[in-house]
């Protein structure tokens, strides 16, 4: 058991150390990337604000991620409600369509969407980026929803209908509160996924530069500590988004439970 624990903690350290190092170096007063670090400063953060391109890229990424989360949420909610109602065959078809993309490399999805755009004569733009990001985030939503819905007893819905509630009423009072926490955390995961997506974006982007694309161009050409501060901000941003998702999810779940208990 001690051995197991040691392995687990070593693995965790392996996962976390690189992130910690990036954060540390982002406060490095010197330009160098060598250990030990001799002094700390905020100069690399100050540089971020002097770079207008970076600001544009950030705004673009935020817009794309928001749009992706909304579209994923709309499609995903409908699909998961459908999943509850479909028979075995319907479920399998839906799953194959909506989950398979997760098992394909971004490169494959990227070039195939590029080919589609070329064939349809569609201009590559922010829209094509959002379309591709939704293809990536729907599978994640479906997996999470399926796990959640497996616990969901549809007899609840039927009982509510039997007791005379309308279809919309049933959805609002019974179904939505039960699936809302999962949907919200999925929307947030979609946001995070889109915010970070790089490979597919690089194929389907038109003139736009997203934050990962900007980081990539910095990484390809030079080695600048600016990448550390930008990365740290991106990292903190992902954590913040996840934390919000976590707390909203918890809050919603708790309030749904208390509501059910009181009614």
């Amino acid at each position, binding site marked *: 058991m001690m051995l*197991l624990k040691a392995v687990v903690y070593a693995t965790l350290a392996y*996962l976390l150390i690189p992130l910690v190092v990036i954060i540390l170096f982002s406060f490095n007063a010197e330009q160098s990337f060598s250990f030990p670090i001799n002094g700390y400063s905020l100069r690399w953060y100050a540089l971020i604000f002097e770079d207008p391109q970076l600001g544009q890229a950030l705004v673009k990424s935020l817009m794309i991620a928001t749009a992706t989360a909304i579209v994923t949420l709309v499609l*995903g909610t409908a699909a998961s409600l459908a*999943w509850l109602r479909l028979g075995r065959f319907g479920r399998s078809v839906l799953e194959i*369509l*909506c989950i398979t993309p997760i098992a394909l490399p971004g490169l494959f999805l990227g070039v195939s969407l590029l080919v589609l755009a070329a064939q349809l004569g569609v201009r590559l733009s922010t829209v094509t980026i959002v379309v591709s990001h939704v293809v990536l985030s729907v599978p994640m939503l479906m997996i999470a929803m399926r796990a959640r819905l497996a616990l969901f007893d549809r007899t609840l819905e039927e009982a509510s209908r039997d007791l005379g509630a309308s279809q919309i009423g049933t959805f609002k009072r019974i179904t939505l509160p039960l699936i809302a926490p999962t949907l919200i955390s999925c929307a947030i995961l979609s946001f995070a996924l889109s915010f970070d997506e790089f490979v597919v974006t690089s194929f389907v982007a038109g003139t736009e530069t997203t934050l990962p694309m900007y980081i990539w161009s910095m990484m390809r050409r030079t080695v600048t500590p600016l990448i550390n501060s930008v990365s740290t901000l991106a990292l903190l941003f992902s954590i913040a988004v996840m934390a919000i998702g976590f707390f909203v999810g918890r809050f919603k779940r708790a309030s749904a439970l208390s509501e059910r208990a009181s009614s």
Partner: protein
Amino acid sequence: MTPSQRTGGILAAPAATYMLLFFVVPAILLFSYSFWISSGFRIVPDFVLTNYISAIRSPLFLRVTYNAIVIGLVTASVTLCLSIPVGYYLTYVARSKIIFYLILVTWFSSYLVRIYAWRTLLGTNGLLNAVLLQLGIVDTPVQAFLFSPFAVAITLTHIYLPFAILMVVSAMSEIKAELIEASRDLGTSALGAFFRVVAPNAAQGLIGAFMLTFILVAGDYVTPQMVGGSSGQTTGLLIADQFRKTGNWPLGAAQAFLMFLVSLVIYALVLALGRLTGLIPARRKTKPAREVA
């Protein structure tokens, strides 16, 4: 069809249509492109096997595909070996929320940032060398960390491990803890319990995690390129170059499908290996049919 199923169909339609249009159709298009021809940045519809033949005959394609397979197999194996104990720990020993969220954080921390972090860590003046020097294990910095197959494996494992852990956790949580306790009560060692109880029951999930990691890693061309130097040439990079540099989309499409075929073959081999070693039980009728992993 029951009314409920009809409502289901209507509700499923938007997502299904979307994925049909933006996932299935593009994949079919890409497949048909692989039979077209290209000359000097112009793509002409055709039906020839030239792209496949020239890809298979090209020593370059074979070399980089070999690279991709090796990188994929090594990374997927290491990833699975690390995610099993972590998954086991999280499922049966301590349901630690904190560990779980730390893993989620790494999963959702930026892909490029993680590559970048490893470039910093493995550099001549990086953390790894600093530690080794401090401990007196080496007396001059090791130059060979960065731009080596080792760098590629350690970085890729880092990138895909969190996802693999989550898959392993979900596969294991389907197995009742009582089963393991029962087998331990009967005197089986912890390792024995894993091989006799956990592995066979979670086999599908474990193989799923292995294969998914393999496919994603073998298709990742950004990481090997950034940390692997000349050892980081993989099929993915070749395919990406066809689409970006030389404009030979048909050849790139053919290479993408060959890579896909390679994944299928590896999947079959892993399954066969699992059956042969008895880790994957033959289908049992007593067990309720499980949903697609």
